[in-house]
């Protein structure tokens, strides 16, 4: 573990929907700086792990869980912690860009407005800072009132990051954010992720092992609902402890 405190933690988490058990006892700790990648074959529960931290699983039918989920050391099911407050703390970006049918500006300010911020100066400051952090400021500054849907896919995805950053979260959850993007847009997105991870914790689910190798300091390998191995990315890829990990990273299955 690094010198930074824990941002995300799972203790012996068992989780499922109805009769199906999706996660079968997972322990995980994510530091409050840097990028942690979650890799594993389709259906192994990567996205489910990600969605634990902002309780997005709660909206799915038949959801249940045992064990602890914590964000910045605090139980996410703490009754004094409202769902909305938790989600201001934990930002999330989805597989496909999902801008709202609003202007670029209103997309970014969606969260702050929900939080009740009405001061124009504050909102303007949030707007420019969020777009700058998402590396979108230069492309967006002249068309803030244009519809967000006029952006290209890569721009839309960075807009979604800016939107998540506008609530100044300590943690950013990225669910295969580059899966719908072309290589150039992916490269820019990865740059953005690397810059962001200097201030906040980023948990990145990815299908693409090269991507994990490029941006993540640490990587966790998930297989059939279990955490097989977690460690420094370079070690995990070059000298995995487990045979299963080795077979996966060398492309023998997956």
């Amino acid at each position, binding site marked *: 573990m690094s010198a930074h405190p824990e941002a995300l933690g799972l203790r012996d988490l068992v989780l499922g929907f109805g009769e199906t058990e999706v996660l079968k006892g997972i322990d995980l700790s994510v530091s409050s700086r840097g990028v942690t990648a979650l890799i594993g074959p389709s259906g192994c529960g990567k996205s489910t792990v990600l969605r634990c931290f902002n309780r*997005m699983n709660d909206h799915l039918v038949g959801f249940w869980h045992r064990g602890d989920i914590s964000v910045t050391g605090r139980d996410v099911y703490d009754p004094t912690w409202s769902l909305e407050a938790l989600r201001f703390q934990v930002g*999330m970006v989805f597989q496909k860009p999902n801008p709202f049918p609003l202007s670029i500006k209103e997309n970014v300010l969606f969260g702050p407005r*929900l939080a009740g911020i009405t001061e124009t100066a504050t909102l303007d400051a949030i707007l420019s800072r969020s777009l700058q952090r998402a590396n979108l400021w230069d492309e967006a500054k002249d068309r803030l009132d244009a519809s967000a*849907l006029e952006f290209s896919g890569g721009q839309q995805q960075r807009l979604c990051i800016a939107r*998540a950053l506008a609530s100044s979260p300590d943690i950013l959850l990225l669910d295969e954010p580059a899966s719908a993007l072309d290589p150039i847009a992916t490269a820019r997105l990865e740059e953005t992720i690397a810059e962001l991870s200097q201030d906040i914790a980023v948990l990145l689910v990815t299908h693409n092992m090269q991507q994990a190798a490029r941006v993540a300091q640490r990587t966790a390998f998930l297989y059939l609902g279990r955490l097989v191995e977690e460690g420094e990315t370079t070690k995990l890829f070059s000298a995995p402890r487990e045979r299963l990990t080795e077979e996966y990273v060398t492309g023998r299955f997956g």
Partner: protein
Amino acid sequence: MSGLRRWLAEGTAQRWLTAAAVLLALGMVAGLIGVVVEVAGGFFWPQRLVELQLGDGSNVLGEVWDRESDPGSPGMERVRVKVGNRDLFGADFRWIRESDVRKRDFPAGAWLIERREYGNFYGFPIRLELPSATVAVADPLFRTALAREVDGAHDLVREERGLLRRVDRLHAPVAKLMVLVAAAQRRGEDAHALEARLANAQRSEDEATRPIMERLAAARQRLNQARLVMSTADGREKQVPVSAVVRAVPVNRLGSAQKVGLYVERWWEFLADEPRESNTEGGIFPAIFGTALMVVLMTVAVVPLGVVTAVYLNEYAREGALTAAVRIALANLAGVPSIVFGAFGLAFFVYTLGGGIDRLFFSNVLPTPTFGTGGITWAALTLALLTLPVVVVATEEGLQAVPQAVRDGARALGATRWQTLRRVVLPYAMPGILTGAILAVARGAGEVAPLMLTGVVKLAPNLPFDSVPPFLHLDRKFMHLGFHIYDVGFQSPNVEAAKPMVYNAVLVLIVLVVALNLTAIMLRNRLRRKLRGSAV
């Protein structure tokens, strides 16, 4: 065999079949609109007046309307001539055998007089009799003098109308008190105080109306003094009071520009004026206004209700037997004959709801109904019910088209379910909602049957919107283009003469529906353009 199969697999024949289906649909629409436009477009165009000399030596003057083979004598043709002069001849039309016609002429001196009563008069002017002088037709001043008198008569008629409206308004409090007195007496209550108030009101009404009535009488006298003396084609003399003249035109002498002017003028009169002669002449403005207002009221009622219903069904209700039942019920509601909705509207809105409102708030005038009778509100609500399924289904489709990722995105930012719905889902579904509104408007504007039970009348003395407070009179009965078409086309005493008016009203109704639809479609397309590319 394999050749045939390959030919079928290639789908050339299928392509032609589908194209033929499109062509058929287009042809039917074009045919309908073509017939309407042809008849409606030509009616207001000034027709030449033809004078026919018949075998028995008599003369006939009029417009040729129709030509067909004579069922009485094979091989011969007969023409239908609109001879007008209903007050003299008893009927507007005559069939004349071609074989009877000795001579055909288009006399330059023939005039068409459009009158406020008894339809058109066709004939030859002799002189204009004024209180101060008489102007013969040969006098070079005849035409200007006649035009001046007709214009003056128009002004006087307009003044008379305004004065009558003021008298009506002055009578309103008296009428209300009379109803109150009658109601009190029927209940066996002491009505003395009311009667005293009524007597008072009548006195003040008399005082207020007396000068108006005097002016009215004077106006009428002035109107009736000027007379146009005409002779018919068969030599009879007829006096036409100038006050009854809408316009007098020497049709056979008109140039093209004058004809166009007259055509436009007649269309304007048709669109902007009130009907005359039990709706077969004059304009249809009250019907246009009533239709548009009713559709607007219906839309205002049905869109929010339909959207809220669809939102509950799609966003909140748990999928199950109940939601399935509601959806089936809605789908079946769309198939219920519209007259059944009319009967329901009459029973529920008019008698139950309207009657209840009357008992609660207007009990002092009962049994005279206020809301407990057909009116524009009840008609609009009945049609709102009729079009509800359309809005619900379209809105549900719009809501289902909102990507889950977009909803999740809003929830993940800390939005509650309601905030997500309000700020993200509804804007996204707006094109679908507007589609529903478009379909509802299209259906509602063309529906007539339910209205006949819930508030449409042949002739409404007042528009449901006027300068009398509270301006919008939701309890009033109203006129409707669809009902107007039915009434003029099939219930009027002079169906043949009114037929072109029916086509004109159809044309206006089609244009109105298309205009309402186009507005909504343009609005939707603008929204669609904003949403374009959202799928990435």
